[in-house]
């Protein structure tokens, strides 16, 4: 029963184009500029098509446009794999389809593409602001879908589709929340192309001079931590992320041992303990905390020493770090128990590990090697050697974000010439020195410190990135040594800003970051409030899949599937029932009519008392006529009242029950006879 010739009407096209513009703007920041241009051309063409001013594109032109778009995408991205090319391809299809709407099903395709493309934007930006914009976009696309089905309306009716779309959105919201809370999440079914522009700031798995000083320029969020107890002292907050054991003369990178993610070397949460678990001596009470980490596209996670995972999909590695089962494509939350008091492998280091942690390239840094072996001969005690090196740092060295550029023998140049550096210089040179002196050592990369939020959680930013060292001593096991703490103790006890706040490079990449204006009271207050809102957003919405199990267990007592299904259908069913009642019951807006009827009934009673009961099926006018015949003195008033009643009740005159009531009351009817 659909009409054979379909042409989109004015109002429908209007909303379709508004939605189109909104969706394109939503994606504008990661679309090539020529697509934006093509989108405007498509819009103009579409409008001209509607006005029959231009002709629809011929098959040749359509093929040409398609080819042009594909060629553009190939030039722009090279490979079709990846999130951006995929979105760009969809957007191209979207704007070409806009020109080719011959049937209603084409219009459906356009609208459904718009829905899908809008949803994809959530992969790029998950901030609260963007989410609101996405919801706005969805409303507009819904209005476009509605516009396809409402009749064309002029003037005031033009906004009707949007109003109705908003109403449907609002009514769908409770149901959506219900589904969001209760629907079980499955893990990734297959691996998917990731964002290409992921060269975001963050700790990487290699460390060359200059890497960490670059992070010091960024105020971007790294992760947030909430502790079950009190937040430990600032100088104990070493967020261990990566162990870098291999040195090629310039760059520290992960050892093969650490890169090798064999199941034997990862202790996943919930698995039976591996043999090397007994090498860890955990003492005292653990610190329990949970971390919400920003997407890094990497697998490593951050935790305090020495951690044990308390969340599904998180594992402990052989070098006592945490890793995630999948790369972090979106924010992730995980819980950890850490034992600040611990000993790691105090009994002895396996020979192959010893080799790894003593490895040094031969041809680099002869001066350092020479000094190390000289000191080794003078001092037999390892700890004393360590304190000697640290004293060396303490004497002359300067901690700065702007270290001079180093040549081939970077450690030599740093230790003996420039003596100015950032954490990676100190950690790298220290580990080099230790290894040269025969002490197993490794660089650890991660974050140090964090900002305490008044709401009792910790915010760790990119400029908190830090590198330090770990050395292995007989009977003590692995212990942490942070040479930076010796040179710039404030860096560890407070934060980077307190040491380098005056340096121009600090936060140079985040010029408008509110962190810059910490010293302005009310602005700082605002910043902290926004921060708190974002944290809760990340915790409860973006990271909901991580806490769903625990949340549902709390809510339902147990999170078996049938209970979830019961809650979902029960609550959802009652919500729908309520909505159904509200939608389907007739609106009682004709109250004024009821009032008129009541007044007329009063008149009938009055007349009945006077001895003129209304007969069954007698109309108001006939009734009045009959009474008037026996009581001519009332005729004029009676006719007037019935005329008034009929006019208001049936003829569409503005109902005015009060006037009618007054007139009826003024009727003086005496008992006849």
């Amino acid at each position: 029963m659909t009409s054979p010739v379909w042409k989109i009407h004015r109002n429908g096209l209007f909303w379709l184009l508004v939605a189109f513009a909104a969706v394109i703007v939503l994606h504008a920041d990661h679309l090539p500029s020529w697509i934006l241009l093509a989108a405007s051309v498509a819009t103009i063409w579409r409008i001209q098509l509607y006005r029959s001013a231009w002709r629809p594109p011929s098959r040749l032109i359509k093929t040409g446009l398609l080819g042009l778009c594909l060629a553009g995408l190939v030039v722009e991205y090279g490979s079709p794999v990846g999130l951006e090319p995929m979105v760009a391809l969809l957007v191209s299809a979207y704007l070409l389809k806009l020109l080719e709407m011959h049937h209603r099903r084409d219009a459906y395709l356009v609208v459904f593409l718009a829905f899908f493309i809008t949803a994809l934007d959530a992969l790029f930006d998950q901030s609260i602001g963007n989410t609101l914009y996405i919801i706005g976009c969805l409303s507009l696309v819904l209005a476009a879908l509605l516009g396809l089905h409402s009749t064309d309306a002029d003037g005031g009716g033009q906004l009707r589709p949007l109003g109705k779309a908003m109403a449907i959105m609002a009514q769908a919201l409770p149901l959506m929340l219900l589904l969001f809370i209760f629907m079980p999440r499955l893990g990734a079914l297959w691996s998917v192309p990731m964002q290409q522009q992921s060269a975001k700031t963050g700790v990487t798995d290699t460390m060359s001079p200059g890497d960490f000083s670059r992070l010091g320029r960024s105020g971007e969020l790294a992760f947030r931590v909430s502790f079950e107890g009190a937040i430990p002292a600032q100088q104990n907050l070493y967020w261990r992320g990566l162990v870098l054991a291999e040195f090629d003369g310039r760059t520290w990178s992960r050892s093969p041992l650490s890169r090798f993610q064999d199941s034997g070397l990862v202790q996943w949460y919930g698995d039976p303990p591996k043999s090397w678990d007994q090498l860890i001596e955990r003492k005292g009470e653990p610190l329990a905390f949970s971390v919400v980490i920003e997407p890094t596209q990497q697998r490593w996670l951050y935790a305090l020493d020495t951690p044990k995972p308390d969340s599904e999909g998180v594992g402990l590695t052989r070098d006592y770090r945490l890793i995630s089962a999948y790369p972090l494509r979106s924010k992730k939350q995980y819980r950890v128990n850490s034992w600040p008091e611990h000993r790691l492998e105090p009994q002895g280091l396996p020979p192959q590990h010893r080799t790894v942690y003593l490895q040094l390239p031969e041809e680099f840094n002869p001066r350092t090697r020479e000094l190390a072996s000289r000191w080794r001969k003078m001092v037999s005690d390892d700890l004393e050697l360590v304190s000697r090196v640290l004293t060396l740092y303490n004497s002359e060295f300067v901690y700065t974000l702007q270290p001079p550029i180093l040549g081939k023998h970077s450690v030599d140049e740093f230790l003996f010439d420039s003596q100015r550096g950032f954490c990676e210089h100190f950690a790298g040179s220290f580990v080099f020195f230790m290894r040269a002196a025969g002490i197993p050592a490794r660089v650890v990369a991660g974050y140090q410190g964090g900002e305490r939020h008044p709401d009792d959680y910790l915010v760790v930013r990119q400029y908190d990135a830090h590198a330090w060292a770990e050395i292995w001593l007989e009977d003590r096991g692995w212990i942490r040594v942070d040479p930076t703490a010796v040179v710039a103790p404030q860096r560890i006890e407070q934060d980077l800003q307190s040491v380098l706040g005056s340096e121009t490079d600090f936060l140079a990449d985040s010029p408008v970051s509110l962190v810059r204006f910490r010293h302005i009271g009310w602005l700082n207050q605002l910043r902290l409030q926004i921060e708190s809102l974002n944290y809760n957003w990340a915790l409860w919405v973006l990271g909901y899949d991580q806490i769903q199990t625990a949340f549902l267990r709390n809510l339902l007592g147990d999170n078996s599937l049938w209970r979830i299904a019961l809650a979902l259908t029960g609550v959802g069913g009652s919500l729908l029932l309520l909505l159904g009642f509200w939608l389907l019951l007739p609106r009682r807006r004709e109250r004024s009519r009821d009032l008129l009827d009541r007044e007329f009934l009063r008149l009938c009673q009055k007349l009945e008392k006077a001895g003129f009961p209304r007969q069954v099926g007698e109309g108001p006018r006939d009734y009045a006529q009959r009474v008037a015949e026996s009581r001519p003195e009332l005729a004029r008033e009676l006719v007037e009242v019935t005329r008034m009643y009929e006019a208001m009740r049936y003829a569409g005159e503005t109902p005015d029950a009060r006037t009618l009531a007054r007139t009826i009351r003024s009727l003086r009817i005496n008992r006849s006879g």
Partner: protein
Amino acid sequence: MISPFRQFFQHLYARWLGHRLPPARQIKLNTRSLFIFPSKAGFSFLLLVVLCWLVATNYENNLVFGITCLLTAIFVVAILHSFANLSGLNISCSRVSPGHAGHPLTIELVLQQSGKRLRENLILAFAGHELVAIDIAATEETRVKLGFVPVNRGLIDPGRLCVESLYPLGLFRVWTQVDLNIRCLVYPSPQTVLNRRTTSSPLDGDEGLIVQILEGGEDFTGLSDYRPGDSPKRIAWKQFAREQGLYTKHYGSAQDERLWLDWDAFPGLDTEARLSRLCGLLLSIVPLDVPYGLKLPGLTIAPNTTDSHRLQVLRELALFGLSDRGGER
């Protein structure tokens, strides 16, 4: 070609529908009379939801998951909105204007609602006939005229009225097929008898011809030379047998202006053809404002010129020989 299978199911459906929605003068659209099912677009929308879910799951993105939930919720809420667009509406037929077979006639329907709900884009049609899309504004009563082209004369049942709505989102089709017990009085398709085969008629032009065909006065007025086309019934066989030549008998008189629509004027034709020609003649006569009568086998209506007379004649033409006379007036 309709496959027998399909035919069988259509038959089953019609029987079931007749049972569920028996004919009634007024039908209220409610859960009993309305049907709802996802449209093709609705199923495509579900595909979209699945796609979004796959993205959300594979990227482990809770925001996309939330959007998936929102789309699902919209789909569910759309069920209620689609249903509400038709539910609570009273449909009855207010007037059927009679017409001729093969020509469109209009059926006026009244749609009533007790509240003031705005209903958009309702599509009404009798199966296989013209579609009408209407909005029902906040008024309580809306009248809509539907076209219907009957094939045969008689008291015709236009079939079930289809009322359908895709509003608001097109994801669900809500429809009903109600039998409002409508009977349209359909007159025979008028066939014009006038062609210029006779030029030398006593009266000139059409009028002469009509009179010639219809003059059916009781009195024999004389003979004239036979002209090809004269009714064989009027041939003066007696004279012919006497070999006096071929003559045509003439009845009636020039003074007697009464004309007769006579069944017997069209010998050799079948019933429908005769009725069509009589109907066509009637339509040609009415503007002449002369009294006319109707002679059908077993029925004679005396000549008259009034409007009610005309309607009665048309009615007899429409119902001649049919068993269903819709309760004789």
